[in-house]
């Protein structure tokens, strides 16, 4: 029995969360450092996983398996494939930046009470989310996955409802009302999705007799587990609904703008770059593997929904007046791309979708965190309150622009690679949908550049004239993200090498192959 590396990757942040929460009220800074160190240590573990993972080896590696609830065949089963490894690394990578970006976001407003420890709570909750997300990526037992998929909601609920931007255009009372509205909306949406999924999980158990992803998938593949068409479709829909809420796919998306708007920028990044990825990841891992026929059956509808998400999200982003809401709608558009890539059922589409998850995480983090720095300086989220920042804080504006360019998938930056792969992957099978989705790139340019123009250029507004440029801490957050964006844009091969075998496996799970090009087919 070797060292349980995967368990350690999840357990470390979990223990860190407990430890951080236990730091006494007066030692705020110690709590921050503790959280940062724990997140960095988790990153180190994740990198170890990445190194130990052999792209050419078994499908699931570093597996761990222990009996848990024997009566129902629930096992504590962990294992990672290439897709999971990539997302695991992304999560572990982003959390230190999130913690660093939110360094001062949760300082108590009045320092008197010795019992009141918001800072400790904030960082502990972030680490708790990390632990749960990590184990969701690792779980190969459906029930185990379900538990952490749902449990994630609890810390997220408190992060959204408990911590908001310092300044608010309608005052603190309105802010707290809207925050709790957003938090409850987040919770309800995801809970409804989760409960429907629970029904499907139980249904799966009834049909299959156990919860093990590998066993069921294998049984599905070699035909020993036959599902009635209707049953398979219902179970698929139950799973897919929960993931579509989390992802979020139109028309189940409306919780995301509220949640991202009301939470602090680091938490918004946590939502869209980390937590939501579990939804798209699970589509790839559970929906396709467990219900290949139903996935194919539902593909046309899902692709249309994804297409609507892409165009609709982008159009709504154009119409927003609030910076964070704009980024949220942009994310909805991007999630549309991811879902489209997954269900295009081509290796380009699925590799692109996986890569997209990674790249979207980094690019949104860059854009949103810089936006957060901007908002914390002026105390307003409204686009109209800014103007001419470029003149006052050129570095801030520059990083913001790079984040924006990544969002609009400029070639040379990482998101381009993934977006193009998704588009190509979709186009080879569904040309019309691919062409319409390409409109998304024009709209992306529109909302990004409008945002940049209105906030950063033009005459300097008096309110922003004294705005300081990025500080060292903030540069440390943004700099590496930008470097990563460029690196992965120019040389994405390390990621695609890891992802590709897993995608090939998934493709064979659903019994599809890439369409052959016309010329080659003719030969």
């Amino acid at each position: 029995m070797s060292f349980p590396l995967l368990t350690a990757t999840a357990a470390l942040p979990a223990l860190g969360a407990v430890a951080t929460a236990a730091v006494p009220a007066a030692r705020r800074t110690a709590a921050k450092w503790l959280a940062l160190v724990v997140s960095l240590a988790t990153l180190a573990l994740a990198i170890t996983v990445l190194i130990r993972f052999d792209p050419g080896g078994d499908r699931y590696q570093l597996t761990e398996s222990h009996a848990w609830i024997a009566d129902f065949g629930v096992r504590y089963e962990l294992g990672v494939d290439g897709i999971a490894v990539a997302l695991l690394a992304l999560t572990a990578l982003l959390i230190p930046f999130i913690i660093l970006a939110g360094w001062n976001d949760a300082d108590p407003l009045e320092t008197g009470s010795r019992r009141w420890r918001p800072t400790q709570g904030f960082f502990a909750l972030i680490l708790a989310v990390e632990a749960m997300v990590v184990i969701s990526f690792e779980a190969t037992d459906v029930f185990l996955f379900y538990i952490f998929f749902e449990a994630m909601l609890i810390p997220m609920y408190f992060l959204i409802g408990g911590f908001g931007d310092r300044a608010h255009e309608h005052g603190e009372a309105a802010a707290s009302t809207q925050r709790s509205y957003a938090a409850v909306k987040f919770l309800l949406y995801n809970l409804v999705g989760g409960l429907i999924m629970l029904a499907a999980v139980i249904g799966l158990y009834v049909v299959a007799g156990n919860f093990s992803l590998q066993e069921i998938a294998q049984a599905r593949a070699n035909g020993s587990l036959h599902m009635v068409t209707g049953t398979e479709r219902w179970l698929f829909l139950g799973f897919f609904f929960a993931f579509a809420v989390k992802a979020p796919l139109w028309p189940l998306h409306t919780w995301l703008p509220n949640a991202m708007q009301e939470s602090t920028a680091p938490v918004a990044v946590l939502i869209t770059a980390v937590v939501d990825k579990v939804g798209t990841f699970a589509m790839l891992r559970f929906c396709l593997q467990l219900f290949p026929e139903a996935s194919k059956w539902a593909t046309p509808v899902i692709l249309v929904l994804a297409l609507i998400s892409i165009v609709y999200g982008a159009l709504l982003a154009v119409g927003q007046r609030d910076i964070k809401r704009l980024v949220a709608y942009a994310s909805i558009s991007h999630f549309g791309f991811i879902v489209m890539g997954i269900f295009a059922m081509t290796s380009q589409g699925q590799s692109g979708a996986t890569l997209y998850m990674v790249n979207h995480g980094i690019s949104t983090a860059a854009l949103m965190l810089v936006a957060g720095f901007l908002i914390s300086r002026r105390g307003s989220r409204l686009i109209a309150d800014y103007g001419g920042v470029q003149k006052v804080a050129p570095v801030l504006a520059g990083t913001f622009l790079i984040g924006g360019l990544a969002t609009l998938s400029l070639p040379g930056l990482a998101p381009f690679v993934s977006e193009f792969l998704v588009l190509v992957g979709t186009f080879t099978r569904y040309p019309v949908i691919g062409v319409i989705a390409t409109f998304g790139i024009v709209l992306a340019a529109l909302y990004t550049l409008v945002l940049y123009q209105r906030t950063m250029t033009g005459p300097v507004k008096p309110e922003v004239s004294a705005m300081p440029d990025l500080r060292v801490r903030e540069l440390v957050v943004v700099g590496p993200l930008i470097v990563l964006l460029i690196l992965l844009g120019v040389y994405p091969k390390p990621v695609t090498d890891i992802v590709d075998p897993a995608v090939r496996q998934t493709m064979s799970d659903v019994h599809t192959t890439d369409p052959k090009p016309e010329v080659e087919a003719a030969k």
Partner: protein
Amino acid sequence: MDNLIALLIAAPLLGAAVLLVGGRRLDAVGHWIGTLLSTTSFVLGLVLFAGLLGKDAENRTLTQHLWTWIPVGGFQADVTFRLDQLSMTFVLLITGVGSLIHLYSVGYMEHDERRRRFFGYLNLFLAAMLLLVLADNYLLLYVGWEGVGLASYLLIGFWQHKPSAATAAKKAFLVNRVGDMGLSIAIMLMFTTFGSFAFGPVLSHTGDTSEGRLTAIGLMLLLAACGKSAQVPLQSWLGDAMEGPTPVSALIHAATMVTAGVYLIVRSGAIFNAAPDAQLAVTVVGAVTLIFGAIVGCAKDDIKKALAGSTMSQIGYMVLAAGLGPIGYVFAIMHLVTHGFFKAGLFLGAGSVMHGMNDEVDMRKYGALRTYMPITFVTFGLGYLAIIGFPFLSGFYSKDAIIEAAFAKGGTQGWILGGVALLGAAITAFYMTRVMLMTFFGEKRWQPDAQGHEPHPHESPKTMTIPMIVLAVGSVFAGFFFHLGDRFLHWLEPVTGHSEGDSPIGATTITGATLVCLVVGVGIAWARYGRKPVPVVAPRGSLLTRAARRDLLQDDFNHVVLVRGGEHLTRSLVYVDHTLVDGVVNGTAAGVGGLSGRLRRVQNGFARSYAVSMFGGAALLVAATLLMRAV
């Protein structure tokens, strides 16, 4: 020697990185670093050029594979460069003109506190443009394609404090994005058709697929070219792009970037050759833009916008030529190069004029500047003569060849296209003469500006005049040099292919007609602007003039249909999202809430009420039990 290709791009890219990341420390030397690295690239280009000349005409294609970029399944994108005669031509044009304009900018941007950043952007542009022309596959080309778009965006909006500049930059990027969409769809089509998008496999297998597919690819490439090269219907951004500093207009929006569309069409010649419908579309677009740009150029009082109209029109010539197929490719590129010289020279001259006139751009407030700025006058004048096609200057050779090729297309199409090209030559002569007369002749019309500063027209510093002189020399001799012994034709032929068309009229006749058109154009302009004084306030003008001043109402159309329509669409969608999508959910929530509100009233707190419901429940249970037994 193959390994030098990457260095061509690396030098300016390094410059951009150093200048943009380096911060204020480099403010003092930044512009020289930029100029040095761009010149380095030019020198490297010359070295490579010499190397190419030393080989046989057939072996002049060099490739350099750097690394595998995106390897996913059957989708294989490499970072590979390809240097052949076509890209070599562009490399020399880009780095040569680019270096000159760097030098020019040293003087022009002297008083701008953000000069270092300007040079960073210029270097970025050079790198992206070189990537565009050196790429060995369409996807890498696409990177350069968008890269120059980004550089263009940054440079048009360089004076970001001006809202008009920021808006113009955004507009340029967006319109370009529409074109980029065409390019990306074209790449996807190539991938589904050929399983690859590298030049080699795609261009050598055009015979294996249907004409319909090739037409589709060709039309998408044309859309891309329209966006980048400001061709109708995506031309609207170029006029606004003149908000950028003048060296930018000269380099990007006259000499290099806007010609990328022509490069794309010529590079994809094999596809167009096999898709006559797409070719026809290309010629139509070129012909329409040729006239469109010329008409716009006639009406503008802003010197840079008049030149922008001219650029549009000249690129129309090139696109027209490229659409003609093998008969036109070489001439398209030749006109592209000569145009690069004289249009860059003209823009630099305009910049020099503005530099001396407190950044005044309205030609109606110039006049009689020939005495104040002699060098500018002479260089500008030579550029002017070149562009109108004055005999034996470079424009004469290249434009004449295009007109001939247009006639050589044959049939009705040939007559129409040739006629349009001739008409364009006449209008070109007219509007360029107008610019010349309004700027340098007549009496002085300048006035103190709002702050009461009287402009003191003066000659520009050496860093600015030297590039102008060099470019003027190029404008004068390049055409003759290329024409001599069909050097250019032989140089490019291995890449683009060439065929002689059978023109219904003789070459001499066409040249004669061209010269007649030239004289007519110049004459009308002289009659209108040379003999009578130019009014300082623009007269109302005819309907056509007024429409031309507004870019032939294209912007108004865009505004009404796209901007307003888009605003309404987004606003209504925001409303829909809030009321309908969110409303359904909130409505459900409110419904549940209302129902529970009703139900809550049952909870009146009286234990006896609860007892009643409990007792009722017990009764129901008994009833249910009985019922079950009965059944």
